[in-house]
């Protein structure tokens, strides 16, 4: 498939309309000098990836992403930024001073992944064919059946992990009272 064939498909314009803002937002997440802006750019990147999931006919996952990430995780981040008094507003030392090793490592990761994608494409083939699932919505019932049949034990394990994270988060974040304060609390 040549590039002119690829770009002639309207669905690829939708892909580009989401992928380009996504990459730009991701770059701003890691370079922004303002923590709050970085968190809000993460919202943009995740919203774009939810859009891509809808293009790939994974509607349920897209809305889970919107609910869990944009609804909960980013709010948690914003609270975390406020509570840790991470520098709100423009801040110059949010990143290390020498950043070229990080850039080199990132470029290396991209180069290796690109090389792997190239190699696997030639090995397996069919990567350039139209995706079969596109345009056919996945019934959410299939996912539910997967969760209570084949993936029941991982599902329970993930539930346990969430419980542990909840308890751990509360235990870590609560302030230990001094004995005098505890007595005060017991009387009230």
């Amino acid at each position, binding site marked *: 498939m040549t590039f002119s064939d690829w770009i002639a498909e309207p669905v690829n314009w939708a892909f580009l309309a989401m992928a380009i803002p996504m990459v730009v937002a991701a770059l701003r997440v890691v370079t922004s000098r303002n923590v709050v802006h*970085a968190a809000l750019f993460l919202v943009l990147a995740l919203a774009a990836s939810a859009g891509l999931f809808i293009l790939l006919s994974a509607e349920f996952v897209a809305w889970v992403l919107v609910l869990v990430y944009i609804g909960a*995780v980013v709010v948690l981040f914003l609270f975390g930024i406020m509570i840790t008094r991470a520098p709100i507003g423009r801040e110059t030392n949010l990143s*290390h001073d020498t950043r070229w090793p990080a850039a080199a490592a*990132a470029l290396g990761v991209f180069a290796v992944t*690109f090389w792997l994608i190239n190699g696997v494409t030639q090995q397996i083939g069919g990567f350039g064919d139209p995706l079969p699932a596109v345009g056919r919505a996945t019934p959410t019932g299939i996912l539910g059946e*997967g969760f209570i049949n084949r993936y029941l034990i991982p599902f329970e394990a993930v539930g346990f992990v969430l419980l542990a994270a909840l308890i751990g988060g509360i235990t870590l*974040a609560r302030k230990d009272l001094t004995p005098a304060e505890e007595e005060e609390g017991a009387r009230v």
Partner: protein
Amino acid sequence: MVLTQFLILGALLFSIGVYGLLSRRNAVTVLLAVELMLAAVNINLIAFEAFWNTAAAHGQIFAIFVITIAAAEVGIGLAIILMVFRNRASGNIDELDLMRW
């Protein structure tokens, strides 16, 4: 749409996350970079699911597991950052060098 375009997008996003992970000093922004990397992994999972088109949608189930674990990770991570901030009055990870040689 073909599979390769999603794989390259995922690789790009993951590399941006690696850059953020290594170049950021502030612990909250490091966690933001980790979230980007997890989002890249999710794109790969969903794209491969659309490619293989399994009857039981295994890729989507794994993506939901990744989202759940990421949520737990953020909760614990921010609680740890809060602890560190309370004890050291700083949110910069390069100042946490107690275990450094």
